[in-house]
């Protein structure tokens, strides 16, 4: 629709700006709070402009962590979160793309049954099966380990389903042409299907990375060793320090840092999708 009505343009800009303001203001306040000493925040007036404690606050939490919450360095928690989120995202994509490949391209007994069994697990997120899953992970000795943090979250019906839908749209003749060209099943997967799935993989990676990064309940259960704490559970522990006021400036600094990696992933991957979309116009 190409219309030129000045007041409509103005109105839409106002609405959009309001939306941006509503989203951005809390983040701005968080940032501002993370740059002040704790006394300013406790005085009862919320500052609106950054203070001069930026470097000090951030180095404290990154290096030594918050004393009241056990002094776990935020840098380490972010590393743990990163490892967990990457293992979940990469693991989910790897497993589900292979599962979808088997279901779409191979005729084997009980193929559809397998598909439906995978599909039904959509109804069983980790929160529902948390006790049995915890028992299994404990019995396998995976408490307080990266494997324990990520493996139970890796099985993914959603990603399998998405890849299946995508593979179904790939023309059958492509597989046949590859067969005539002498590409066996593995070669076809590696040389043709995988490159064609690039944009799907990028999109899923973003979603799954954020899903993994934001995990809260599961890390809380399986980690008792501070060196495996993740940042999202870390923030909660900082707020809920027993017998004292929360140290808001440090909590806010931690929150800012916790938001950073998902934002970076989105920004970086967004360029990849757009590139992929332009190349694959068919």
């Amino acid at each position, binding site marked *: 629709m190409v219309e030129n009505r000045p007041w409509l343009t103005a109105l839409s800009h106002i609405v959009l700006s309001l939306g941006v303001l509503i989203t951005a203001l809390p983040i701005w306040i968080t940032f501002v709070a993370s740059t002040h000493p704790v006394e300013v925040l406790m005085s009862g007036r919320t500052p609106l402009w950054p203070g001069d404690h930026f470097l000090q606050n951030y180095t404290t939490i990154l290096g030594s962590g918050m004393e009241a919450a056990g002094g776990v360095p935020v840098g380490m928690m972010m590393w743990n979160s990163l490892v967990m989120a990457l293992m979940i995202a990469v693991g989910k994509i790897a497993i589900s793309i292979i599962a979808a490949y088997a279901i779409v391209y191979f005729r084997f007994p009980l193929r559809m049954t397998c598909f439906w069994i995978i599909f039904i697990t959509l109804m069983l997120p980790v929160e529902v099966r948390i006790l049995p899953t915890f028992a299994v992970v404990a019995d396998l000795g995976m408490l307080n380990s990266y494997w324990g943090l990520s493996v139970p979250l890796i099985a993914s019906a959603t990603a399998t389903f998405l890849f299946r839908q995508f593979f179904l749209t790939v*023309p059958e*003749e*492509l597989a*046949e*042409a*590859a*067969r*005539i*060209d*002498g*590409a066996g099943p593995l*070669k076809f997967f590696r*040389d*043709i299907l995988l*490159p*064609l799935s*690039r944009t799907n993989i990028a999109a899923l990676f973003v979603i799954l990375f954020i899903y993994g990064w934001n995990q809260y309940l599961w890390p809380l259960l399986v980690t008792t060793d501070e060196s495996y704490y993740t940042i999202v559970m870390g923030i909660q522990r900082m707020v809920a320090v027993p017998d004292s006021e929360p140290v808001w400036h440090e909590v806010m600094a931690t929150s800012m840092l916790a938001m950073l990696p998902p934002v970076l992933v989105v920004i970086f991957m967004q360029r990849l999708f757009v590139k992929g979309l332009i*190349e*694959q*116009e*068919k």
Partner: protein
Amino acid sequence: MAGLQFTGVRKTYPNGFRAIHGVDTTVADGEFIVIVGPSGCGKSTLLRMVAGLETVTEGEIHIGDRRVNELEPADRNIAMVFQNYALYPHMSVFDNMAYGLRNRRTPKEEIESRVAEASRILQLDGMLDRRPSQLSGGQRQRVAMGRAIVREPEVFLFDEPLSNLDAKLRVQMRLEIKRLQRDLGTTSLYVTHDQVEAMTLADRLIVMNAGVAEQIGTPLDVYTEPATVFVAGFIGSPAMNFLPGTTTTDGRGVTLDGSSQTLPVAPPSSASRDKITVGIRPEHLEPTSPDAASLALSVDLVEALGADSLVHGQLAGTTQGSAVTVRVDGARRVAAGEALSLAVAPEHIHFFDADDGRRLV
């Protein structure tokens, strides 16, 4: 280089559908065979069995003197061009052509020289770095051909390769394919539902209907002596006129059903039964003077095509008589409602058994 042999080839799909009811034929080395028939008659099935993309339920297929029933497609020394081209979208034109050769561990210089040669023949130089999405329909078609050529196969298989092109490009590519096949001398099987394509390309035609090869022969043979009513109606445009009739008691003519008209031509002596179908092509009916006429037509509709006109009408003297189409010179003025007297040379009248549709000789 090699010929091709089908021996009692049948195909039953896993769901029980019987797609091919037995094909027996031999294709000579270097021959261009077109498999033609209406949609769903089993053309692709037959081709895909040669390619190895479908299993052969019964019978044998030989390429050269090798029985290929159990061979993988890559081991049959064939190349196939698909209707939608099936180019690898993420690979450059060069890689699309080179992919099969690389899988066969052809040396790098050899790959480069073969691709260069193919792209020269197909006028694809300067496009080798492009992706398929950056090419026009005709260029994609050429890349698909190039991918087939570089393999230097014993047999080319084409499954409706021109169906996705516009009319003008289709005519042009048709000529190119014909020229290319003649220059390379590679045995080719070409599937199409387009009878013009079939007639122009083929050394020999296989006309298929519902899983049966109704007739195998040169385009001219198929046109002049169609083996069945189906073939007669399928090959030739506009389609042949079919007039059901009965042999007269003296055996010297045919009385046309629902009309008092008698065609003064004796049916073949083998037509012992009296119910027969008479077939006459629209281009073989000539307007003439009423006393020299063998048929009278009342005209319903005239389609002027320029060079000639198609006159549609019914046999005169009937209410629900058989519809007849006549091709007349475009310069001739014919109006709807007019009566048209028509003559036909006896050698252009075809007789078919009214029950099984076979040609009577």
